[in-house]
């Protein structure tokens, strides 16, 4: 705690590793960015539940014999989803997301969305297949309520916003980095030279990806690039140009994956803007010569010429 106070006062950097880590994790960031991010994250619940992963609802029709509850579901002793529980959960989740989108009761509504969405995910993944694109999104749902009130008009930075945004950024990076770790753990370094992309295209290719099946060398080069980028993902946490290039590369990677094999990690993508200076959206509306210049030190902030 000492470390944080010293940094906030701007006197000197804290000494201990734990102190420095704490200070870094709660380095103040714009509150307005939290408000913008909420406007992406909470409405996304509607898209996710009603459109892109609408198959979750169908689990209400599946007999309990095919329900394979995950550890968390067993720990909490949650009932098997059925034709009553699933619609009730759905309505509750969408209602909470609607309230959270308006920005009212940010803590209570946000906490409700987190709990109900996590439950919804246990309904989704307790039938024999777990998806892996939701960690950062769940972290976002968990930490966004902690900031309390936030408006896109806010002009100040806060440690609460910094802590929440940093947590989301770390979760995004962890997803990339640990997916490289998982490749090494489950397959080993030979993942790079394996036929993983060939198989993926054989199963769910497209007009764009199918011709690649004849170029195994190119596929291996792509596989090597993927692992290298995943291992380099912690660079995303470096403010400035590295971060902007990194976010752009991540966006291109996800777009290419979608065009090639029709797989898109939407919940994860919704979290990527946590790296972007969203708070400047409103400042730009008022013109770059606004009465208050953006604070220095904001990742990606461009200081207007004197």
């Amino acid at each position, binding site marked *: 705690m000492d470390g944080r106070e010293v940094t906030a006062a701007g006197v000197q950097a804290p000494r201990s590793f734990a102190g420095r880590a704490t200070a870094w994790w709660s380095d103040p960031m714009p509150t307005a960015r939290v408000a913008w991010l909420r406007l992406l994250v909470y409405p996304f619940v509607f898209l996710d539940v009603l459109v892109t992963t609408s*198959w979750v609802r*169908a*689990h*209400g*029709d*599946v*007999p309990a*014999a*095919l329900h*394979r509850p*995950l*550890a*968390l579901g067993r720990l909490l002793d949650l009932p098997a989803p059925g*034709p009553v529980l699933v619609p009730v959960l759905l309505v509750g989740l969408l209602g909470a997301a609607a309230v959270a989108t308006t920005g009212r009761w940010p803590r209570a509504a946000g906490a409700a969305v987190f709990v109900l969405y*996590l439950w919804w*995910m*246990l309904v989704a*993944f307790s*039938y*024999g*297949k*777990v998806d*892996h*694109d*939701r*960690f950062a999104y*769940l*972290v976002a749902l968990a930490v966004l309520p902690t900031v309390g009130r936030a408006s896109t008009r806010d002009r100040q930075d806060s440690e609460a916003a910094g802590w929440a945004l940093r947590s989301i950024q*770390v979760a995004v990076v*962890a*997803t990339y980095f*640990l*997916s490289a*770790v*998982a*490749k090494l*753990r*489950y*397959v080993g370094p030979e*993942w790079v*030279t*394996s*036929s*993983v992309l*060939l*198989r*993926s295209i*054989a*199963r769910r290719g497209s007009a764009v990806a199918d011709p690649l*099946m004849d170029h*195994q060398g190119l596929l291996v080069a792509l596989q090597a690039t993927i692992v290298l980028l995943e291992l380099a993902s912690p660079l995303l946490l470096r403010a400035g140009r590295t971060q902007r290039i990194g976010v752009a590369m991540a966006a291109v990677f996800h777009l290419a994956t979608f065009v090639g094999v029709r797989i898109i*990690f939407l919940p994860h993508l919704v979290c990527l803007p946590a790296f972007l200076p969203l708070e400047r959206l409103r400042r730009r509306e008022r013109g770059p010569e606004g009465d208050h210049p953006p604070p220095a030190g904001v990742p990606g902030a461009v200081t207007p010429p004197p």
Partner: protein
Amino acid sequence: MVVGSLLLCGSAVGTDDWFPLGPFRMFTNRANPSGRVRVVTLEAVDAAGRARTIRPPDVGLRHAELEGQLPRFQAQPALLEAVADAYASVHPDRPPLVSLELRERVRRIEDNVLSDEVSERTVSTWTVGR
């Protein structure tokens, strides 16, 4: 800090069961240069005597879920009755299913080249009242 530690443990020794803290195994199934690509299909006969190919959404499941529970279906063919029940819930307007056959279609990969040869085998079967 706690979440971070659990996440690292999850990635090191956890399984999908640890969701949301399990390992991020996107595209981490073994993909040797030579091997097999498997596609699971469900064939059924309904009460009107019509043969139907059942798509996973017809029984409230995703393709990967059907594949994920393949070993269970193989060990307990009676579980297919639950699949037939799910079909009746999803399609209350259609005649119910009286028999189900879970099949897998296999294509070989040799040195990273997909062969045209397709082989099929039955994983498990169920008939109503048996």
